[in-house]
């Protein structure tokens, strides 16, 4: 218990440090005294705009995206009992991407409608997966198979649409790489409640989640309605993931890798494992976004590229250790 508290405090401290660092660095570098002047309302107008309108909302969105993907990944891996499950397993990422590619390349829909449309697309794909997987109850293997099928279908149509998207192709490829560049308060306002409320609900229901980690028969013998609770947790993961993809695009590896790191630091049965995983996800994504902003300065590398570069080797390491 004491160790887990230390880990939590360490992550929170790192989060605060990184958040402040991310406020200071950028095209215009600020100092801590500058930030203090800003808090007192005495900074230059340019500094105020840069910090309040660009860096703070972007950092908040990074925290939300990281926490949501990590929590959704943890839920997916837990309820499907599949260590390679990710938030996109139910087709939600491919579904959201498909709807956005469709709207941009065929109907030229304005950008401010895209998050809502992507969210609906993600939920739709998730529901289609559940429908296909349902056979009186939701079995993990059928969820995986149905999710793979829905993902493949959405990805195939998206690819075909991209080929005919003409001048929009560049924007779409940029969006499909995932990222927080140019995102601000609008995206925070559009997504926070679809992330925060499902996340808090999953934290509150952690006892049921822990039972779902057990074998179905054991969980049932302990009085858990396995199918119903599995569906509820999957829906929570779908909601969070759809909200994330709709504002940040597909950001890979976070939902897959963070739960594994989290399991090494804290027992999966620990009552604070899900919040701990969310904190870790927020920290890693804030770090990845900072790297995305700075590693090719003044240009940006798409966040999805950074998370893949960080997460890929880690995943390979995990697989290798698992095999050994």
């Amino acid at each position, binding site marked *: 218990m004491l160790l887990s508290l230390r880990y939590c405090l360490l992550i929170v401290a790192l989060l605060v440090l990184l958040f402040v660092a991310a406020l200071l660095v*950028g*095209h*215009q570098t600020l100092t801590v005294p500058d930030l203090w002047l800003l808090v007192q309302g005495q900074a230059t*107008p*340019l500094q105020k*705009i*840069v910090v309040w*309108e*660009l*860096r703070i909302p972007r950092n908040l969105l990074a925290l939300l995206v990281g926490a949501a993907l990590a929590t959704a990944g943890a839920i997916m891996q837990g309820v499907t009992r599949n260590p390679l499950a990710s938030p996109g397993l139910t087709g939600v990422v491919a579904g959201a991407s498909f709807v956005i590619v469709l709207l941009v390349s065929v109907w*030229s*829909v*304005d*950008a*401010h409608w*895209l998050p809502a449309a992507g969210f609906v697309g993600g939920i739709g794909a998730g529901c289609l997966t559940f429908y296909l997987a349902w056979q009186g109850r939701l079995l993990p293997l059928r969820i995986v198979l149905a999710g793979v099928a829905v993902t493949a279908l959405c990805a195939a149509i998206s690819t075909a649409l991209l080929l005919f998207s*003409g*001048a*929009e192709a*560049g*924007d779409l490829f*940029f*969006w499909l790489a995932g990222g927080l*560049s*140019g*995102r*601000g*308060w*609008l995206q925070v306002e559009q997504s926070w409640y679809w992330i925060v409320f499902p996340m808090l609900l999953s934290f509150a229901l952690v006892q049921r989640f822990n039972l779902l980690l057990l074998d179905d028969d054991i969980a049932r013998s302990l009085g858990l309605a396995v199918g119903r609770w599995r569906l509820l947790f999957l829906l929570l993961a779908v909601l969070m993931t759809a909200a994330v993809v709709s504002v940040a695009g597909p950001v890979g590896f976070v939902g897959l890798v963070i739960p594994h790191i989290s399991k090494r630091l804290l027992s999966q049965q620990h009552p604070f494992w899900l919040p701990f995983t969310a904190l870790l996800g927020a920290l890693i994504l804030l770090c990845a976004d900072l790297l995305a*902003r700075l590693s090719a300065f*003044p*240009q*940006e590398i798409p966040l999805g590229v950074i998370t893949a570069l960080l997460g890929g080797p880690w995943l390979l390491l995990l697989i290798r250790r698992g095999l050994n």
Partner: protein
Amino acid sequence: MATVQAATITDDRGVAVTLPEGANRVVAISTFGSDLMLALGLKPLAVTSFGPFSRPDFLGPELVGVPVIGSRAQVNMELLSEIEPDLILAIRRYTEKNASQFESIAPYMALDLVTLADSLRGVQLSGDILGKSAEATALNKQFQQQLAEFKQRAPGGVSAALLVTSSETPFIYHDHFISADLLGYLNAENIGGASATPEQALPLGYRMGLEELLEQDPDVIFLFASNKKRAFTLNPIWPYLRAVRNGRVYEVGHHWKEAAGPQARALILQEMAHRLYPNQFALPALSAQIQSRPYR
């Protein structure tokens, strides 16, 4: 079309393009080709689409009824072969991958058309193969004189950005892209700056973060044509930009993207000059298809 002189030209691939009987049935796989041919008093047998429009109508009524055989990057080869051209005039980077297919239909001339130097060379080379060398030389000379005259008249002291895309992060053009290059001839600074790899035509620019855009804070912003609301203009920092506060953001026509033709480049120069220095330069007469307008 009555050109019958034999011609051999080396195109921008370094390939010799030979027309034993001259160019009589020419297909323009780019707005540049249509633009140039009409400026030379010729008419293409087929054209490609002009961005979201079927034809570049701003070039005049001569193109009405001329078949459209795809876009500059995706040509319908069946339609092209049915026309039986004796010369295909195209942009290299969009068509070179299909060079063998084009060459099986007709002699294929591929041009690099990114910079102003490309435009001047492309006009001359194309004029040569079309049997209109002197006229092409005159078109270039006339434009260069216009550049010199505008440079002399332009007061300077303004900065500008040429932004494209509808995503959250705008793409800004580097100096070497023709439309951005013209800013220099109007003594205006392009905040997109020079390319880090000037020996290469690509990339044409880069995605400029809003923080950098705010810091550079150009006097004038030119937004390239888009049929939907641009996401970066919805960001809270947008109203803080000087160009936005002063009402100096303009949506420009699609010809700014396809600027290499002799008519397009001249129209851009005149329109840009007016938008940068409204008191010194008059707004040229432009068709509704390409007329710039203040962005709201």
